[in-house]
């Protein structure tokens, strides 16, 4: 009935619209620019993201607004995460520009796929309905599959893309199956409705837990935690470094968002169940990630395992929200904001570290082995210092951002009564410190294999320096990011 149709409030989704239309526009623009004018495409992409950021900033009012028939939500958490996403992507684009150009990968497809993936993430972040979650997730995943395989002449790249595609489809299947179970149990696709149904115990418990297990499995794949982590080392390794950087950074924010929306918001009534599941996966990830990283000689693979262990740490924060079936708002917000802080810190460190790899690589040389970092201090003391900051921060050495992230997560874990979990986590991160410090040792105490000077653009150098200093100083003054995280969560839950 046409006269019942009300035009939805499109303002909350204004940034999504900007990104979407610009992505389409860029495909067209690409037809009319010559090869030497490719930089315009890159610039246009960055401008798009800046525009979206501006729009998000302008429309951020701290209110929770539902739109598109309650499928789309615009709240402070969404604004915060989207804002971080834009900047993660912009940083990735700046870092990888010359890397892509040297390998002939700076085609418009790359930028368009990045924009679509970003759009997918934005939709995930703002999802208020199972369908929206799935829509965003698929948009992100499909773009990612293509991006991983974008270097189509490289066997490793295409193999990685294929693996990611098959396993990712399976994970999507698991998630979809889980969501459909939940739909069956509660009779609604709206996350708010599901939360209500679960809280009022209307839904059959068995069916809920069944759906929950599959949903958790789907999310776990996205986060890349044990035992759904197998794709991570191969894909991180196989994909071009620029794509690995993209894959390892911004999507973690989106994955955190859907975890918050689905588990913490939608299935809060089952918190005691999923906390247990996440706890097991977190411990396995921290253990396996740190142990396996030690044996790696390829720094991208090493960082892949490190990513697994970091996501395990982040999950620890999510498992500390509900204590003994009792919901204490203060404890819960503390725990979830520590997890959010962890993700933010992780994204910042990951961007910097992969940027270092790209800084060292040049045409025909990937610089992805640990050996390539040998004697970096002799070649460039400043950037060796930057890498040192990244490694120290990832290892959780005071007073870098990574330390404070680990510290707040562990504090939340201990407050929730899981002291032994915190002890185990600390022991494993101690073991993990070995492989981070090995990089430092290689940089400072070994003779360089490659003695050539570093060649890179000035914008990349500046950004990398800012990135490194941010990692160093945000750890000394963690209040800013921490209070932003807390506010975003308090206003949105």
């Amino acid at each position, binding site marked *: 009935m046409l006269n019942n149709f009300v035009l939805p409030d499109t303002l909350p989704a204004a940034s999504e619209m900007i990104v979407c239309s610009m992505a389409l526009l860029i495909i067209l623009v690409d037809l009319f620019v010559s090869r030497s004018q490719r930089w315009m495409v890159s610039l246009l992409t960055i401008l798009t993201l800046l525009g979206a950021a501006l729009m998000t900033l302008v429309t951020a009012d701290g209110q929770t607004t539902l739109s598109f028939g309650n499928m789309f939500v615009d709240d402070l958490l969404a604004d915060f995460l989207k804002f971080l996403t834009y900047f993660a992507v912009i940083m990735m684009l700046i870092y990888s520009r010359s890397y892509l150009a040297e390998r002939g990968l700076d085609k418009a497809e790359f930028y368009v796929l990045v924009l679509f993936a970003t759009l997918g993430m934005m939709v995930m972040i703002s999802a208020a309905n199972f369908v929206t979650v799935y829509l965003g997730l698929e948009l992100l995943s499909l773009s990612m599959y293509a991006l991983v395989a974008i270097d189509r002449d490289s066997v490793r790249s295409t193999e990685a893309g294929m693996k990611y595609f098959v396993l990712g489809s399976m994970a999507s299947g698991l998630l979809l199956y889980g969501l459909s179970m939940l739909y069956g149990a509660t009779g609604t696709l709206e996350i708010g409705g599901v939360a209500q149904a679960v809280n009022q115990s209307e839904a059959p418990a068995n069916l809920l837990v069944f759906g929950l297990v599959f949903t958790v499995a789907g999310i776990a794949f996205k986060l890349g935690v044990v035992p759904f982590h*197998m794709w991570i080392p191969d894909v991180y390794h196989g994909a071009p470094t620029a794509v690995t950087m993209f894959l390892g950074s911004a999507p973690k924010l989106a994955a955190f968002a859907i975890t918050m929306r689905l588990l913490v918001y939608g299935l809060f009534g089952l918190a005691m169940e999923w906390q247990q599941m996440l706890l097991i996966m977190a411990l396995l990830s921290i253990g396996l990630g740190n142990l396996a990283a030690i044996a790696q000689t390829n720094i991208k693979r090493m960082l892949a395992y490190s990513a697994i262990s970091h996501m395990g740490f982040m999950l620890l924060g999510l498992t500390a929200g509900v204590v003994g079936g009792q919901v204490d708002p203060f404890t819960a917000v503390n725990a979830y904001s520590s997890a959010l802080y962890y993700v933010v810190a992780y994204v910042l460190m990951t961007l910097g570290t992969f940027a270092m790899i790209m800084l060292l690589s040049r045409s025909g040389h990937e610089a992805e082995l640990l050996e390539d970092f040998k004697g970096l201090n002799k070649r460039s003391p400043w950037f060796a210092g930057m890498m040192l900051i990244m490694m120290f921060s990832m290892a959780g050495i005071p007073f870098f951002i990574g330390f404070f992230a680990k510290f707040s997560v562990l504090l939340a874990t201990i407050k929730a009564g899981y002291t032994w979990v915190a002890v185990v986590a600390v022991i494993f991160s101690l073991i993990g410190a070995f492989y981070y410090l090995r990089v430092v040792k290689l940089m400072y105490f070994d003779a360089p294999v490659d003695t050539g000077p570093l060649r890179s653009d000035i914008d990349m150098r500046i950004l990398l320096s800012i990135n490194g200093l941010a990692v160093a100083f945000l750890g000394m003054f963690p209040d800013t990011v921490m209070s932003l995280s807390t506010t975003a969560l308090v206003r949105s839950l």
Partner: protein
Amino acid sequence: MKTTYLLIPLAPLAGAIIAGLFGRLIGRAGSHVVTILGVAIAFALSVVVYQDVNAGNVFNGTVYTWLQSGGLTLQIGFLIDPLTAMMMLVVTFVSLMVHIYTIGYMVDDPGYQRFFSYISLFTFSMLMLVMSNNFVQLFFGWEAVGLVSYLLIGFWYTRPTAIYANLKAFLVNRVGDFGFLLGIGLIAAYAGTLDYAEVFAKREALAAITESVTGWPLITAICIGLFIGAMGKSAQVPLHVWLPDSMEGPTPISALIHAATMVTAGIFMVARMSPLFELSDTALTFVLVIGSITALFMGFLGIIQNDIKRVVAYSTLSQLGYMTVALGVSAYSVAVFHLMTHAFFKALLFLGAGSVIIGCHHNQDIRYMGGLRKYMPITWITSLLGSLALIGFPLFSGFYSKDSIIEAVHASNLAGSGFAYFAVVAGVFVTAFYSFRMYFLVFHGKERYDQVPHDEHHDSHSDDHHGDGKPHESPWVVTLPLVLLAIPSVLIGFITIQPMLFGDWFGTSIFVDAAKHPAMSHMAESFHGPMAMALHGITSLPFILAVSGVAVAWFFYLKRPDIPAAIQKMAMPIFTLLENKYYFDKFNEVFFAAGSRMLGRGLWKGGDQLLIDGAMVNGSARAIGWISAVVRLFQTGHIYQYAFSMIIGVFALLTFWFNRG
């Protein structure tokens, strides 16, 4: 007044910093001017403070709060009462004398500025120690003077014996400090405060507590702990072994640190803690016995020494024993009185010895001196006055203080006071004997300065004053302090005995439980003024002993120099025992040093290398490396295995959650 109090320790500190950091810049003269100025300011202000305290003003307050932790507040604070004021005067006066003296003594030394910096730093530390109103600051000063002592004993750091000696002093003092810290720790634990006044206010409550671990009365444990600290610092048997060796340092610091001031810090501390010690007869008996052993047996060792500085050092040990004995019989004011007189005459004797050493071109062996009174008249006269004061000749300052100690021991009814009385009385003879043995050998008799064998050990670096080889009188910067110190050495006892011992000059700063320990009140009854005391002294046993000691020394070393050698042959075993200083050093070396080295090696080889390094560190690293290699095998690269692991994961989660009930 608070500013004045602050300025007193800070002026020498400023001097020390300037001379220490900018010594090269301001030169030698600049360094001694700035440090002497600092100490002179401290001395002048101490006089002002002394007069203020004399007028009845007592200050106890905080100047700076350092930190607050739990219920414990750590502060920098001053307690300025008669006891402190007296100590400040003694410390700054002797320090000033030593500063001036150093100009002459260290004139050729390349470490001139460093030396001035150290002794000023010492003055600062010592002032912090005596002015403190709490245990933390006391401990700070205690350790700081120990540090400077360490630095100065090893001042000539290229000499192995100096390094050995300063290490020894440091280690032995650690043993004492351990006891001291235990005492302070017990106070902090049970009283909950480290402020003197607050602790003293709780003394009755503390006395009622029994320490839970050992089952001892708490107050006894505290007092013995604190006294062990005093034993280390004030060189009481068996922690005395470091003091004779400390003579490796330059003579001025032997006078300042190892005779007049630092070594008396233990005496001062016990007197300061008199409200606590009064509550434990056990601790007092312990103090008394240790003190009397030190007083007598260290005196014996003085008899056989041939190094001029070592004779004075053993006499210092013996006199410290006298002070400790006085503490033991609750005659705290007498102990402090002797501390003061001793500071003057012992500094005088040490500086006199230094002057002799300069005069004899850095020869220290008294067998190669003799007849110096012709060449060094001022040194001779002042040394004679110092020696007379030391042996307690009537009217000299040492007479009043030492006789008072003997009287106090006589009047005491504490367990062990019988032995102590014997020890201090016999000690008088011994003291007189060794003091005048040295005096006669140095200043009288045949001139033997030309018989010095050339490998004799020197007090200083190579010496370019050889000239004609004859001894000569020292320059005025050296003799002036001697004269200035000789005056109080002679007079101070006569002037101050009345107010210090029998008046109420110390007021509340020293506490004696007169009902339990009546020695002081007994003495007060029989005291009829200093002149009467001196007249009575002439007829008393100690005087007869002292005079006979002098006579025997004269007979042995001037009249019939062959007798000592004959006696030495006859009593060989005793001589050997004394020669080896009762084997304390041997015992320490064999038992403690070798024992702890063995323990250390055992822990190093067995504990550290085998267990920690081998099994734990390298072992765990190897284990993790192995696990890591195994884990790596799971990542096969086959996509079906990856998918399989996901399925297994889901399956495991499902099974777990459905079988859980």
